[in-house]
């Protein structure tokens, strides 16, 4: 089993979510993160001085999945999450040793 971490643009979240739903991936966990990378944050002006943050707000989606489905999910996100401009983000695949559904203690493939 794999854990897929996708760090994407906030503005792409809905598109990615819908694309995943199309391949029947409807369960995942999302969180707000701050991305430090090539792309810089928004410029702001306050009382005559302009400034900006170094990061931009991003969403990280964590998806636990079986080995078979993993490739599918990655390529779906690659397609749906891309704008082609700097700052589209990253997808990482990490190995999972075990996974459990808390509700009924089902394990591994059953739990996803």
């Amino acid at each position: 089993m794999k854990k897929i971490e996708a760090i994407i643009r906030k503005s792409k979240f809905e598109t990615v979510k819908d694309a995943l739903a199309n391949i029947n991936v409807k369960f995942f966990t999302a969180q707000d993160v701050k991305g430090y990378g090539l792309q810089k944050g928004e410029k702001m002006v306050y009382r005559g001085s302009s400034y900006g943050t170094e990061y931009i707000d991003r969403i990280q989606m964590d998806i636990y999945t079986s080995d078979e489905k993993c490739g599918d999910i990655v390529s779906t996100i690659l397609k749906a999450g891309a704008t082609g401009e700097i700052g589209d983000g990253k997808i990482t695949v990490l190995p999972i040793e075990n996974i459990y559904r808390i509700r009924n203690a089902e394990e591994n493939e059953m739990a996803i």
Partner: protein
Amino acid sequence: MDTNLFTTNNLWILIATVLVFIMHLGFATLEAGLVQRKNAINILFKNVMIVSIGLVSYYIIGFSLMYPGESWNGLIGFAQFGLALPEGDSIGYADGSYTYWTDFIFQGMFAATCCTIVSGAVAERMKLESFLVISLLFVSISYPITGMWKWGGGWLDEMGFYDFAGSTLVHSVGGWGALAAIILLGPRLGKYSKNGINPIPGHNIPLAAVGVFLLWFGWFGFNGGSVLSADPDAVSLVFVTTSLAAAAGAIGSFFTAHALFKSHDLTMVLNGILGGLVGITAGADLMSPMESILIGLIAGIIIPFSVVFFDKMKLDDPVGATSVHLVCGIWGTLAVGIFGSMAGLSQLMTQLIGIVSIGVFTFIFVFAVVYIVKATMGIRVSVEEETQGLDMAEHDMPAYHDLAPRSEDLAVK
């Protein structure tokens, strides 16, 4: 009339002016609370500029358009640019109730409220500069002309149309302006989808509640000051009818909203209070306490239906300005023909004529202005700007900094 009473009368109108002024804060906070967090700076900016532009332009031309002295068939007139202090004894002015300056500043505070009503309805998607241009024309030309028809002694006044403190002259005028603008502007992105209505909840409901309390507070000056003297009987009756109508508006909305939506929606009750206040405004000096309760109650019952109705029409109004000011403004003006000491069929007809004529004029005027601005400057922000929020797009500044950036977070320009 003697100096003493003149001083007291004048003082009351001045204090009423102060109370009407704070209604601008009421509108500002109500609207800021009911928009999304990403548009809060923008709506506050608009409100701040409206009062400012409103007062200055009303000084330059509005007041002279509204109170021209002489007019062409009671339809339009213009005294002069700026103010012209009348000759002679100040006590002689306005039947010995207030000075010329008092008259101007009290009226000036009223004028700006019209645009404030519009600002709420077009919130979250209208370009700042276009909005200010439209407001300028609205407050300095359209509002004073229709205002003159009644308060400036124009044709509606002669016909016997009655609108004590402006259910029609201020509120429904603002509401018609709002309606014209939102028709041309369109709804916020995503508000109406093929699946139905997607609510876009306000970001700070407590701020909106503060706004409604402040509006009620200011309304004592709005209605009480419209007595145009400190006459004890008249002003105190107006205080009673105004308060009871507001209270009954809340109660009306409370039960109606709960019956319709099975939920105690605070924003509905807040709108109910405003509906009651707008409703009583046309006849606040004519009604008994019980009649004012009825008028307020009915206004409060109307509100939830009206809000739903405009949403069904896909007329997107984030703060409910059309329901509160337009619908309840019409209701209040009609109520003068139904309840109270002037009630009667012929009065009802006259009221209807006033409502329709002022409505048609205002709607066409604002529609034309917005149409022209749309064709030239554009009236709507881009999809990107709307998504990002007007605060960043037009002001480069968020409304709240939850965590202040430390110095090191900051890249210097």
